[in-house]
């Protein structure tokens, strides 16, 4: 649906040029929730704003359904933006008008519906986000979570196919964050939306995203399925971000009692995660192993597990046997450390 091709963004402040984005290439599919994660200043908001050209790229281009966004004239660009919902971190609601009028604003802008139909649509989307009873209040009298629901309702008013969320939950407390994320998931499933979501929290990615791109200093350093990136992160920034939510990449323990040790990293996700894998592997190989670290759980709707195990006194053939059994069970297994020297007591 969206192709970002070699996009870069350069700002010049005085004589100093600053590269916010460097040669970013991404492809976002219709109907998925795509997460963009990075530390503050990594350029993720800039990247999101390129999609509807709130920021114009200094190089490269953005294609929406095979149409170059940069080639649109101002009228066509406005028409495109009317079909894209945008949810802001700080809601950006108008304080001078009621909740219902805030939600009606994009409908007035688009000007395709008569007044009565606009009012009906406002009622519908407010009901969809669960704040139908707040329609006549002013934004200032609402809580943060309710305000973000108004923000989402406003973004949905024109029935967009694409929703862009810029740190939509970063100004909210953890409980409210969870409920707003649940709302995003709900509406995505109900309306078949495509959602691009910028965040600095792997927790958000974990609970809603299908695919993720990790941004660092204006470059995409890693991109892929969320389960893939969580279980087998390749870049240091990804690992650091994962560590922040306690999703640590297992560090092999030094307290091992065995003199010949093979430390193996095992990870799996999908249907296979719902079977009693470890005991099956133990039975099939006839080998003993101890678990050095483990985590298992769900990423959005994918079950996953990752274990670091130590194979007791295994020789090379036993090791290869173990690895192949793992593979037969659709478990990715990697030897992360082999220590063959015996340690003096």
């Amino acid at each position: 649906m969206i192709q970002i091709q070699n996009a870069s963004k350069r700002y010049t402040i005085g004589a100093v040029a600053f590269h916010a984005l460097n040669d970013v290439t991404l492809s976002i599919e219709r109907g998925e929730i795509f997460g963009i994660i990075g530390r503050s200043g990594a350029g993720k908001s800039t990247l999101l704003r390129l999609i509807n050209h709130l920021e114009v790229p200094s190089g490269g281009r953005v294609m929406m359904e095979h149409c170059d966004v940069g080639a649109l004239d101002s009228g066509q660009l406005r028409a495109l933006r009317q079909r894209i919902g945008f949810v802001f971190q700080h809601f950006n609601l108008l304080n001078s008008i009621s909740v219902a009028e805030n939600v009606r604003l994009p409908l007035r802008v688009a000007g395709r519906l008569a007044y009565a139909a606009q009012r009906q649509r406002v009622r519908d989307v407010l009901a969809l986000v669960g704040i139908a009873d707040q329609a006549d209040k002013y934004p200032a009298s609402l809580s943060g979570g309710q305000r973000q629901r108004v923000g989402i309702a406003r973004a949905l008013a024109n029935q967009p196919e694409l929703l862009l969320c810029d740190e939509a939950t970063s100004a909210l407390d953890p409980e409210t964050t969870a409920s707003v994320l649940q709302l995003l998931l709900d509406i995505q499933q109900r309306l078949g939306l495509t959602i691009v979501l910028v965040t600095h929290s792997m927790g958000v990615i974990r609970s809603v995203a299908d695919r993720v791109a990790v941004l660092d200093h204006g470059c995409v350093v890693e991109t892929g399925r969320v389960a893939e990136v969580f279980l087998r992160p390749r870049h240091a920034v990804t690992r650091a971000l994962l560590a922040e939510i306690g999703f640590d990449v297992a560090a092999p323990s030094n307290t091992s009692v065995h003199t010949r040790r093979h430390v193996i990293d095992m990870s799996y996700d999908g249907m296979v995660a719902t079977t009693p894998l470890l005991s099956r592997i133990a039975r099939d190989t006839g080998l003993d192993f101890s678990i050095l670290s483990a985590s298992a759980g769900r990423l959005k709707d994918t079950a996953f597990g990752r274990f670091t195990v130590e194979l007791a006194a295994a020789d090379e053939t036993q090791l290869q046997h173990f690895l192949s059994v793992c593979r037969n069970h659709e478990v990715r297994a990697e030897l992360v450390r082999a220590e063959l020297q015996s340690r003096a007591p």
Partner: protein
Amino acid sequence: MPGSIWQSLRDFDYWPEIGEGTLDTLAMTGCALIFTVFMGLTVGTLLFLTSPTHRSVRPAYQRAQAWAYRFVSFLVNVLRSVPFLILLILLIPTTRAMVGTSLGVRGAVPPLVVASAPFFARLVESVLREVEGGVLEACRAMGATTRQTVFWALLPEASAPLCAAITVTAIALIGYSAMAGVIGGGGLGDLAVRYGYQRFDTQVMLVTVAILILIVQIVQWGGDRLVARLAHR
């Protein structure tokens, strides 16, 4: 003692003149305020839209905007630099051409507008700058035109402080209108100058000042109430 104050107020000979002067002052100020608000909003919004903090993303427009800002800003500064009394005199031919006379209520309105519109325009510009940038970005993101953004978001969001700015301008206009009296503008200022200054009639001067104080208080009170009503904080 209080009885004698009431006595002297009852014996005061100039009530008809005072009444007429009050009405003239209100007419001058009100009329000038309407034009001032209209012109000031236009020019102030123009200043805001072309100001360096709010430039188009397209480089071709940026240069045009920068020049528009410099030009309008310079014009506003020039008008604000001229002392009102000098402006009144300088504008006499223009005023005659516009409303047929440079005297009386009608003759006072054009110079009042010329003096207060640039002042109000600057107030409008600074009020609009205080509007949260996020609101304007939200408008851009929903595909609004500049006109839609100005009328549906920018001005409504600024309505409370704009109302306060109008109050300030209205009170400044009351002061200016008294000065317009010096060159035959009519109103309470005219009365105060003719009787109080030229004929040494302190009583007339005190009464006009008292009425001016009353008008200013009422305007400020009304303005404050309106501001409180518009602010949905």
